[in-house]
């Protein structure tokens, strides 16, 4: 496979039978755009957009009626004969030696199984240490209370600050503060900074954010002895389940079927079965009864991963003409016991000279997990803030300054998107485009901007089957999982489109490991991996059907076409057959066709811009977001309605991140203080502004679009607050106290 760094055009003409596609790859640890030469196979095409009947149109999701009537079955909802409910005991200390006596719990009436999760010394708060299965959830809680546990506290550090003081207890054997960059030579950037006409600097901080999926992590293990088990899992990866579960059940992976009918949100946190899932398997194996183990809410906060926090110390040089001449960053991410995802700097914008150092600091808390666009929202908050500070420092229009510092190859794209956002949010009529509003008004309005980038390309790990039965019914089968993005719906619509049927004639069956393999849903890779394979399977099914009909009706299969429940010879329209009759001709076996990923039906590389308009109450410090606008390209939009939901959802999550969300821990007591929905705030109905989501026309194939949507919204909001009242909040979330303190500081200055 040949790869070349990205230029505007492919490096040369493709070899015979090959073609060039753009992909995002990690090259030397950096996300890079590259051209890749791949086989140019003849196959299905999406076709002209204006000719599409179902794909790309606004289609209500096919499983909507199940969801709105409570019939959709999530793993939480699985109820089986003789099923036990399991609960998990978690270590309430961040670092402790643990001793358990389970005898009393075992003797408790109604408790059927108890397992110890083999740890002598716990290194992070909330680690599971034992699990109890009982006849009801209430009895399982009793069982937990009957466990006699003793915790011998060890020194701990639960905040980055405490982890870095002299003599801090060692969380990681390699040190609590670890440099992750090989290049630490700052001489070039220091020289460029020294020569800068204007300098700006600041330290931006982001808190730890939680995925807070409404359906918590967990599985239901249906094992009643014997050599087969079914595992219902709330997961982003159907195929990440059987292998994990089989090991603990003493079965082979192919004796375990994973089922994921519906799942209640994951956002990057749900892969595999985890320690708790292993406990459920052990309990099922011990009791030979089905076991239902789902986290409670506090556990979800303590032990289901998070988006790492971070500190971004940024310094930039800028010319009075509006060019970023130098950029220096030191990024320290707060990943708990793990490293945390990279928070790339400089984020999107292209200074002439740039240097970034990445470090991580370890604490005795749960490690990070991937969360929707890992690392990008954190980086965006700091970089977009710096961009505004630089623009204010030289008195330049905030949009104009951004447009002057865009990366090579993306200038036209981002400039167009910024202009569109500016138009939709009313930038031209806004009075404060290059300075903030310094008036004494009580309610002040400001506007801010931010950019996003993501890959969203697909891969080869999907196998899809389309079945046509002799009664005319059609099924599309894949083991993939629907996280709420509308996967079932586009599977059905792609097949119906290809076969000339109505949406209701095709049933999509997904979420079962006995169906064809599918990639786990991470990094917005599902649609771009799966949709091409679905299209390919439908196309193959159609060709097989046409071959059969050509035998039956005469004519040549390649001249056949279908539409409106009819199959006909395009060269001789008298040769035609209705869909039902055609399928009856297949005989009792019907037909089945397979499909795999087709690179030409997918694409990669998303760009987006967002703008926010806020109102700041200078008496209370309250920020009210009035309006948000998102403009994004994303290749072929598979379903305009569900895509709009995702773009809105990205903006909502970013708003929530910017204004409300923050993990709070007590550094002395080592406790997580807000592991619930009263104190860990999520945006609710009354926080939602007017929202506008715009997809750009984009002739490319399918690209996953969800990650980019969540990246820049909170940055735009923070910038809008600064624009409204002059207060730069360097640390999220943007709470009233920070705004008021900022206003007081401004007054003093």
């Amino acid at each position, binding site marked *: 496979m040949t790869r070349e760094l990205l230029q505007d055009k492919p490096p040369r003409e493709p070899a015979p039978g090959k073609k060039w596609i753009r992909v995002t790859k990690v090259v030397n640890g950096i996300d890079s755009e590259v051209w890749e030469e791949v086989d140019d196979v003849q196959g299905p095409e999406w076709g002209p957009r204006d000719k599409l009947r179902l794909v790309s149109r606004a289609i*209500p999701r096919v499983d909507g009626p199940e969801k709105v009537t409570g019939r959709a079955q999530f793993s939480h909802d699985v109820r089986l004969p003789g099923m036990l409910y399991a609960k998990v005991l978690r270590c309430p200390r961040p670092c402790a030696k643990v001793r358990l006596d389970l005898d009393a719990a075992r003797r*408790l009436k109604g408790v059927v199984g108890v397992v110890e999760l083999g740890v002598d010394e716990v290194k992070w708060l909330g680690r599971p240490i034992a699990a109890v299965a009982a006849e009801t959830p209430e009895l399982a809680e009793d069982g937990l209370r009957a466990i*006699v546990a003793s915790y011998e506290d060890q020194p701990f550090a639960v905040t980055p600050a405490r982890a870095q003081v002299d003599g801090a207890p060692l969380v990681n054997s390699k040190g609590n503060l670890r440099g992750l960059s090989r290049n630490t030579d700052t001489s070039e950037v220091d020289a460029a900074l020294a020569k800068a006409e204007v300098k700006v600097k600041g330290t931006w901080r982001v808190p730890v954010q939680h995925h807070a999926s409404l359906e918590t992590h967990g599985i239901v293990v249906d094992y009643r002895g014997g050599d087969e088990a079914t595992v219902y899992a709330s997961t982003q990866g159907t195929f990440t389940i059987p292998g994990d579960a089989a090991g603990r059940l003493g079965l082979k992976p192919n004796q375990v079927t994973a089922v994921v009918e519906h799942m209640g949100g994951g956002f990057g946190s749900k892969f595999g079965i985890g320690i708790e899932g292993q406990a459920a398997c052990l309990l099922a194996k011990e009791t030979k009864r089905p076991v239902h183990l789902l986290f*409670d809410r506090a556990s979800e906060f303590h032990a289901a991963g998070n988006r790492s926090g971070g500190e971004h110390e940024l310094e930039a040089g800028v010319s009075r003409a509006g060019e970023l001449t130098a950029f220096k960053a030191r990024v320290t991410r707060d990943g708990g016991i793990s490293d945390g995802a990279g928070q790339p700097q400089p984020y999107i914008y292209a200074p002439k000279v740039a240097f970034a150092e990445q470090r991580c600091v370890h604490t005795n808390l749960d490690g990070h997990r991937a969360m929707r666009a890992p690392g990008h929202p954190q980086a965006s908050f700091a970089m977009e803030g710096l961009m505004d500070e630089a623009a204010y420092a030289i008195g330049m229009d905030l949009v104009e300054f951004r447009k002057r510092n865009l990366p090579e190859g993306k200038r036209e794209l981002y400039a167009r998107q910024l202009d569109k956002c500016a138009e939709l949010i009313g930038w031209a009529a806004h009075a404060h485009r290059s300075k903030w509003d310094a008036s004494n008004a009580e309610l002040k309005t400001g506007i801010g901007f931010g950019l996003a980038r993501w890959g969203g390309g697909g891969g080869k790990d999907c196998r899809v089957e389309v079945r046509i039965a002799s009664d005319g019914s059609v099924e599309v089968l894949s083991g993939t999982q629907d996280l*709420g993005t509308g996967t079932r719906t586009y599977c059905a619509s792609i097949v119906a489109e290809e076969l000339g049927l109505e949406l209701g004639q095709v049933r999509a069956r997904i979420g079962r490991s006995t169906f064809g393999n599918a990639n786990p849903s991470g990094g917005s890779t599902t649609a771009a991996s799966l949709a091409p394979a679905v299209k390919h399977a439908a196309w193959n099914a159609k060709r097989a059907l046409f071959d059969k009909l050509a035998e039956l009706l005469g004519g040549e299969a390649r001249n056949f076409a279908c539409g409106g429940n009819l199959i006909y010879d395009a060269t001789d329209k008298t040769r035609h057959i209705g869909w039902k009759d055609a399928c009856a001709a297949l005989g009792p076996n019907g037909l089945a066709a397979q499909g795999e990923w087709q690179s030409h039906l997918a694409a990669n590389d998303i760009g987006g811009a967002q703008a926010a308009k806020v109102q700041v109450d200078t008496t209370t410090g309250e920020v009210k977001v009035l309006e948000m606008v998102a403009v994004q390209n994303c290749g072929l939009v598979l379903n305009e309605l569900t895509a709009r939901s995702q773009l809105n*959802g990205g903006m909502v999550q970013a708003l929530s991140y910017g204004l409300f969300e923050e993990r709070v821990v007590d550094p002395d007591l080592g406790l997580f203080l807000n592991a619930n929905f009263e104190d860990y705030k999520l945006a609710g109905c009354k926080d939602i502004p007017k929202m506008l989501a715009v997809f750009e026309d984009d002739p490319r194939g399918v690209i996953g679009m969800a990650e980019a949507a969540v990246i820049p919204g909170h940055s735009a909001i923070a910038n809008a607050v600064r624009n409204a009242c002059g207060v730069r909040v360097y640390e999220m979330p943007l709470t009233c106290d920070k705004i008021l303190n900022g206003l007081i500081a401004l007054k003093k200055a």
Partner: protein
Amino acid sequence: MSDVAGSHDDRPHARDGVLTRRSFFKGAGVVAAGGLVGEAVHAAAHSMSLEPVRLSGEVEIELSINGALQKLKVEPRTTLLNALRNHCNPPLTGAKLVCDRGSCGACTVHLDGQPVYSCMTLAVACVGRAVTTIEGLGAPGQLNEVQQAFCEHDASMCGFCTPGFVMSISACLERKPDATLDEIKHACAGNLCRCGTYPHVFDAALSAGRALRAKGGKR
């Protein structure tokens, strides 16, 4: 933090002999107890030698659920939510267990027509009252106006919060089919959605209100 021994939710739970559903005891080595607070026994953290004793038992109650009477065996501490999900036959799992303390609305059902958090309501307190769950509002093929509008406007993504939103909005529009956007936001201010479907939820609610008014206005 109900999963972690020794750091339980610390809210008062034994006030004035009031029936509460939680009986949390602090400290390791705690003895199980549940149900009526009057009977609660506090166990000290050092009570390692105590044999566990359960002080509550099951009671048989009859509840009116979606228009039909159903006999259920529950404990006094069993929430209405757990009764619906774990004790009904067939199980009614449309109402979801998400926060288990009345802060997200995913468990919303109607009690005598009023939306309530079923995770904060004891099953035994619902005897003689009419419980309506999401399963009682409509079925696929027979959706009510709110459910229909939710489908058309794509007001669900993962769908876990959806039953709760549908219950809150249905109750609101039942009272006031011409509810304004602000009134709708107020009606579901107690419901959380993590996927961020709110804009489409509002569109759906306004559209359902129009459909209800077209059908015959205020009842």
